[in-house]
């Protein structure tokens, strides 16, 4: 009997490690994605606690719950925690969970690097938070870290710089993994223009991250060398220029805004077609619009610093290039609306969050256009109008999209359905309170209330009270979210493989919960087609 017997090492199995080793030595994309999401959730609530403290201080004029230094520390840490600790890791977590399943890959391309990029985060987060407990307190110079102010915060200054380095390294490793996975591990037949838009959005986001993270790393390193090693990159006394820091910071900072929001565009492009029961309107236009937004993000940084004193020609360039972003963004908003047009709409929680995103992100976009205009920006700059603008973009924008994404894919991850009624309560409380929280800040800004102050003139009290009440309700309503997830995992009803009738994509071809090892054999063309057309 000479018939050969081939051993295929990848026999059918559902092995998974147990105990703490499963998490510490995790290389499975689903485990790492879960850890990213838990970390992001913890940071979201810590950053949220800082926000509650801020709103308590601003509840009325003369509150003085904290001294101004502590107040500024809370503002700074709120921003750093939310941007680098909550929103970015949440997107990386979603990428880890979904990208391999959506492109038919068995895992991320570099699983050990994936483990490293996650495990850097808790150390960086701890370092950042521990700066509250060193002499002089946490840094209070704002997330923009402008020198020379930033260099005046004693022991916490190098801690924050090192934490930013670590968070940046983690982001770069995560982005590299995403790029390599998408470019090299797509299933046969999953061509670039067949990829789900969440994957496309992440590919472009990863490209942005790779392009701009060294700029941030270089910028904070130069801050450090200016302070400790006598260099003068940003020290005017030594021939440097603090304004140059602003240029490099915003050269990083504006693409960073898109790093936070582009994956949200991808998620919304998944959710809206599902609950409209129609294919996405203008798929290719959406891809090109996302790429155009990413490209334009490199040439608009000057709009953050119109008032710094720059030539009129430069102001004109940055104003026009910024306004140009409205074109591809408008294409996206139009295409989402066109997808819903005459669709068979239903409003489950993911769709509710997606529709709220559509309306409220657009409000943030419009106030962005107002800020892009040089003459009006001179009035709005440094006021609460700016605070209202970017919170409209980032909270009902990025955060709502993350919540919507979790409600959308949770049945696939856990194999269970969550309580729709509670999730709708979560939505309505969030969407009402977020507007009560941030919309009055437009009025405060237009009336001249500056941002980053711990106390204010009494005429601003009324709208601040309204805003704070909105803030407390929004903060409290977010506590529902982990409760809903916990109840879903513990006692939710079993979910079908395709719990949403109109869902398209490879991830819905897998059973719910998704197996620990998925797509060990690449999906066939028939499965690809079924996933795309269902």
């Amino acid at each position: 009997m000479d018939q050969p017997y081939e051993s295929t090492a990848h026999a059918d199995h559902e092995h998974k490690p147990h105990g703490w080793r499963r998490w510490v030595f995790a290389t499975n994309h689903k485990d790492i994605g879960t850890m990213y999401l838990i970390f992001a959730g913890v940071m979201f609530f810590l950053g949220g606690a800082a926000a509650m403290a801020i709103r308590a201080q601003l509840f009325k004029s003369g509150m003085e719950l904290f001294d101004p230094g502590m107040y500024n520390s809370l503002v700074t840490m709120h921003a750093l925690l939310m941007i680098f600790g909550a929103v970015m890791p949440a997107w990386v977590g979603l990428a880890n969970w979904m990208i391999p399943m959506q492109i038919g890959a068995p895992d991320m391309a570099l699983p050990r690097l994936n483990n490293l990029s996650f495990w850097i985060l808790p150390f960086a987060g701890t370092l950042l938070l521990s700066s509250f407990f060193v002499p002089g307190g946490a840094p209070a110079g704002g997330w923009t870290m402008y020198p020379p102010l930033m260099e005046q915060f004693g022991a916490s200054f190098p801690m924050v710089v090192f934490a930013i380095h670590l968070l940046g390294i983690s982001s770069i490793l995560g982005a590299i993994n995403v790029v390599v996975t998408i470019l090299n591990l797509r299933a046969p037949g999953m061509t670039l223009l067949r990829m789900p838009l969440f994957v496309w959005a992440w590919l472009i986001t990863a490209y942005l991250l790779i392009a701009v993270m060294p700029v941030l790393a270089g910028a904070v390193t130069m801050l450090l060398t200016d302070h400790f090693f006598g260099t003068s990159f940003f020290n005017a006394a030594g021939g440097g220029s603090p304004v140059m820091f602003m240029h490099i910071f915003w050269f990083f900072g504006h693409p960073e805004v898109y790093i936070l929001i582009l994956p949200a565009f991808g998620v919304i492009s998944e959710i809206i077609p599902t609950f409209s029961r129609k294919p996405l309107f203008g798929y290719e236009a959406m891809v090109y619009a996302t790429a155009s937004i990413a490209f334009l993000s490199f040439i608009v940084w000057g709009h953050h610093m119109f008032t710094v004193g720059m030539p009129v020609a430069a102001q004109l360039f940055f104003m026009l290039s910024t306004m140009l972003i409205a074109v591809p963004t408008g294409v996206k908003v139009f295409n989402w609306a066109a997808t819903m047009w005459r669709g068979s709409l239903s409003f489950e929680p993911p769709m509710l969050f997606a529709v709220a995103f559509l309306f409220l992100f657009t409000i943030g976009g419009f106030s962005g256009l107002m800020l892009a205009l040089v003459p009006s920006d001179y009035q709005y700059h440094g006021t609460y109008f700016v605070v209202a603008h970017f919170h409209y973009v980032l909270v009902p924008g990025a955060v709502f999209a993350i919540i919507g994404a979790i409600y959308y894919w949770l049945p696939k991850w856990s194999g269970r359905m969550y309580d729709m009624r509670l999730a709708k309560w979560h939505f309505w409380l969030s969407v009402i309170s977020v507007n009560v929280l941030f919309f009055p800040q437009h009025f405060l800004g237009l009336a001249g209330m500056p941002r980053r102050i711990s106390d204010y003139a009494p005429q601003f009290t009324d709208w601040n009270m309204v805003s704070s009440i909105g803030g407390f309700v929004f903060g409290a309503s977010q506590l529902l979210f982990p409760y809903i997830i916990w109840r879903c995992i513990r006692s939710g009803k079993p979910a079908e493989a395709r719990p949403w009738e109109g869902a398209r994509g490879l991830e819905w071809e897998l059973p719910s919960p998704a197996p620990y090892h998925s797509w060990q054999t690449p999906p066939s063309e028939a499965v690809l087609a079924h996933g795309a057309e269902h």
Partner: protein
Amino acid sequence: MFFSGACALSLGIGALFASVGLWPILPAAGLEMILLGWALHASLARRHQAEILTITDCDVCVESRDRSRSCQVLFQRHWAQVKLLCPASRLHPSRLTIESHGRRCEVGGFLTEEERRGLALRLRRLIGRVNESPPLTVGR
């Protein structure tokens, strides 16, 4: 093309800032590009990595392939033995080898611990112990 584009953009940005004296961005960008290049290369190389174990009545053939080369090690099935070597530390992975006549060939290096143990069981069943050739039956 992607890598060239990323290099051009990232190093271009670094060079632009270096030209106005802000040189520390350039080495950071360079390091990042080296890492990206390594990651793309390593992933592409792994795509070609394969280990094929062929067991016949007489022989056990271990063929290892990667991008540029392929090598075969042949053992007499009757004398071959499968060993799963436990690591000295719990933190290290086990090692699965096929041995005979003073020669040793490691297999399953890129499997997870559980997958490697499963493969060891299966190989023991197919290859048997030293001086043992269990009958091969068709099927997996």
